[in-house]
């Protein structure tokens, strides 16, 4: 991986993030209603007071470049404005408070989905056309066609409402006191189980389909024929020759996908009322809390850009042909 490649990718990511911040600025300005209009409604406000308020908010300066520059500056210093819904709490604080549940849920789901998805796809593709392939590929396609909440709702009906094995919502039992940290952790685990299964199943579909086509392509390569000609067993050819090479394109695909998962899994959190970024987004949406929505958009877009950057870097590192 050349230094030029690295610099170009880094620069590209920075420019994209800047473009996202600028888009965010204009989205904000597109919205009807402004502090000024609220002030106009009050008959007791004098012209001087209005002018003073405008000066204090910086509304007397032109939209471009002054207001735009001020917005970009404050965004990069971590000031994302104040939430309407949470009574003027800074958006950054609100977001940080909801980050951990989502990170735990998505992180674990990715972990399990990568393992099971890749194995399922690899075995289906290796035995292409077999019963196992047809069942596995069909299973993957059906899961791939299901929005997260469509997976989650039946799980609640069966395992929470029906069998009563797991709670239906939240991340902890309301009002419960725990004797030990372990008991508290167990409670958390019981709440985590169904959302985790939901997101994992949702991810497995895409991963197994991609891995299947990757291994089918690899299977046609000459070095696989060579490995067979050497008299290696089928399982050995698969494990030591086909699987690692088919994994290569998957690494970048998974890295790119990581950035989109949080946005996609919003509905999984909603179904289980999981207290993460997803439920926060929907709450902000129903309260029309625009500053918070913009904060969520910025956070999730930056995740995607960073994930893409990581994917590019891994690709440049793994594939020596990339020099451009």
């Amino acid at each position, binding site marked *: 991986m050349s230094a030029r490649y690295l610099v170009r990718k880094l620069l590209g990511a920075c420019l994209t993030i800047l473009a996202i911040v600028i888009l965010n600025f204009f989205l904000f300005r597109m919205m009807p209603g402004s502090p000024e209009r609220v002030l106009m409604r009050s008959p007791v406000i004098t012209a001087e007071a209005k002018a003073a308020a405008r000066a204090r908010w910086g509304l007397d300066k032109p939209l471009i470049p002054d207001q735009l520059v001020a917005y970009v500056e404050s965004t990069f210093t971590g000031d994302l404005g104040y939430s309407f819904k949470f009574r003027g709490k800074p958006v950054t604080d609100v977001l940080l408070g909801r980050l951990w549940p989502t990170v735990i849920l998505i992180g674990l789901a990715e972990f399990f989905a990568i393992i099971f998805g890749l194995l399922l796809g690899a075995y289906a593709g290796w035995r292409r056309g077999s019963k196992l392939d047809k069942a596995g590929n069909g299973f993957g*396609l059906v899961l791939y*066609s299901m929005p997260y909440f*469509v997976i989650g*709702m039946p799980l609640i009906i069966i395992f929470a*409402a029906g069998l009563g094995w797991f709670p239906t919502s939240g991340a902890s039992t309301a009002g419960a006191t725990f004797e030990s940290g372990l008991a508290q952790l167990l409670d958390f685990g019981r709440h985590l189980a169904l959302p985790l299964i939901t997101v994992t199943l949702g991810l497995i579909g895409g991963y197994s389909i991609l891995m299947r086509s990757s291994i089918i392509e690899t299977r046609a390569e000459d070095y696989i024929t060579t490995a067979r000609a050497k008299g290696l067993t089928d399982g050995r050819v698969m494990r030591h020759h086909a699987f690692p090479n088919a994994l290569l394109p998957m690494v970048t695909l998974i890295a790119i996908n990581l950035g989109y998962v949080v946005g996609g899994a919003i509905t999984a959190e*909603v179904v289980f009322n999981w207290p993460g970024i997803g439920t926060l987004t929907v709450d902000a949406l129903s309260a029309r809390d625009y500053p918070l929505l913009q904060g969520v958009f910025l956070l999730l877009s930056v*995740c995607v850009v960073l994930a893409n950057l990581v994917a590019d870097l891994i690709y440049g590192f793994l594939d020596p042909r990339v020099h451009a």
Partner: protein
Amino acid sequence: MSAATTDPAGVNGPAGPAPVVIHRQRFRGLRESLGRFSTRTDGLVGLGILLVFAVLAIAPALFVGPLETVVTATGGVLEPPSMAHVFGTDEMGRDMLNLTVHGARISMIIGLLATVITVAVGALVGIVAGYSGGRLDNALMRVTDFFLVLPTFVLAIILAPILLDIIGPEAELFGIRATLLVIVLVIGLTSWATTARVIRSQVLSIKERMFVDRARVIGSGSGRIMRVHILPNVVNLIIAQAVLTFAFAVFVETTLAFIGLGDPFAPSWGQVLNAAQSAGAPGLGAWWYIVPPAACVVLVVLAFTLLGNALDDILNPKSGSRR
């Protein structure tokens, strides 16, 4: 290659001996594609499922009568399936079979309109960028890449309420209410980038072909060349892309409606599932409220994906997913 797109039924020419030969040649590509398609079980299954849902969407009232409202509800509260209500009822006593069948119409119309916008914008950008080349191509592809990176779904969540505030919730166009219109617009505006990329790469190779040079030599303008010579040659690709986009559009519409951006007066499947979630149906174990609309969503998205993949393999010369 171009599957008889300019004169599909041969309506323009009274069939003398010479035109017949031309038509035969023209239809050969189409016949070959159809022949290859008829061997694709997955594509045929997808097509079959879609035909059933298309019939339901075109005439829902024929099968289950007019859409039931709170006033015209025919059953009790959250009744399990029975002889009177085969799919049970919702929390307002509406028949679930009625809601599900009418949901087909709303989900499919939104999906169709969103697909038209997505593919139209994507094809326009792709053709113009690919044919023009140079700076315009560069600029358009920058914008396309930017939209490819943006998390579509999250952008849609933010754009929808803003657009709704701007055009007002009471507005209507062709009898479609603002809420649904906003969903259509949002899906269209945020998901054209993939189509643009796919079409552009095809246009790049088509514009090097001899007939484009010939057209230029006899004095055709860029606009005419793009319309008359380039467009018919990417129609195949546009069709395959449209079918795949349709699957995505139904998926996104369902999700947006589920998180509360739908129209309660025009319940799509996502909107019905949103109502089920608000009514606490999962926790109450009211499976009949969830399974019918959820199964429909999965079937339709799956069918479009199967059909789209099959068409893509047959019609897209650059398709990587050869099976």
